[in-house]
């Protein structure tokens, strides 16, 4: 086990959780007040994204110019480019859930530090939703490759 790599993950996670907390994004009311554009509006969340984006838009191109990460063998950035139905349906459902309770995964996990049953409820539901969706997606991929193999053998 690479200890340096674990230390990086710890520092990165800690800064992320601290950032979310400092920005008060762990307070679901603040998130929902941002989403409430037709009512009493709190623009703070847009500034959180702007602050994070400002750092990353500058840093990311420089980082990706390197041949490899400092402590790893390659950059594992997403390769997929096409916009498919799954992306739209997934993002839509995610938005509905986010709007109902004001929790997206980052603040939800960070908020575990405020020990409360409400946070555990939303977290367990999130874990269940993620587990079964990933399971379904894995089966779809396996079926797909199976079909492709059959089509391939027909051609041959």
């Amino acid at each position, binding site marked *: 086990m690479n200890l340096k790599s674990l230390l*990086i*993950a710890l*520092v*990165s*996670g800690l*800064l*992320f*959780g*601290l*950032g*979310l*907390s400092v*920005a*008060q994004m*762990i*307070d*679901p009311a603040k998130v*929902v007040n941002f*989403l409430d554009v*037709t009512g*009493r509006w709190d*623009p*703070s*969340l847009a500034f*959180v994204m702007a*602050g*994070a984006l400002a*750092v*990353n*838009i500058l840093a990311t191109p420089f*980082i*990706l110019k*390197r041949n490899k*990460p400092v*402590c*790893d063998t390659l950059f*594992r*950035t997403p390769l997929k*480019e096409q916009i498919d139905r*799954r992306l739209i349906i*997934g993002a*839509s*459902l995610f*938005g*509905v859930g*986010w*709007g*109902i*309770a004001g*929790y*997206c*995964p*980052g603040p939800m996990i*960070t908020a575990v*530090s*405020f020990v409360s049953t409400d946070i555990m*409820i939303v977290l367990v539901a999130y874990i269940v939703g*993620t587990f079964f*969706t990933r*399971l379904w997606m894995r089966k779809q991929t396996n079926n797909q490759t199976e079909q492709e193999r059959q089509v391939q053998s027909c051609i041959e």
Partner: protein
Amino acid sequence: MEIINFTPYSALTGGALIGLSAAILLLFKGRIAGVSGIAGGVILPEKEDIPWRIVFLIGLVLGGLLYQLLGISPGVESIQPVTGKLGLVLAGLLVGIGSALGTGCTSGHGICGLARRSLRSLVATLTFMLTAMITVFIVRHLLGSA
């Protein structure tokens, strides 16, 4: 429209910390700081790279604890849910299903993806922002729970 509780400085500072976190993870480890992706790889693993993911998630919670220890103001002292228990279950399920299906959440698409100028992430971010705003409009103003 009326502006309330706007905290631009703490929002920008917190955002910059999140940006720094993502830059560190990419520079040293070559990974995207997308929380749903990192958590998803622990909830139902695809590969054998679970330890760093668990450590990152522990880091998130420690970040929240550190914040409480430092007592930064204006602060969040306790978290009040904006919906009932049934709403929490429904919201958690939808956030889990949606982020797995859409391969990302606010951090992965909204921050890292946009910084890489990914069109997929731009479309995802605009989509979830829109459906979230419509949801809040329906729940708050049409059903009138607030």
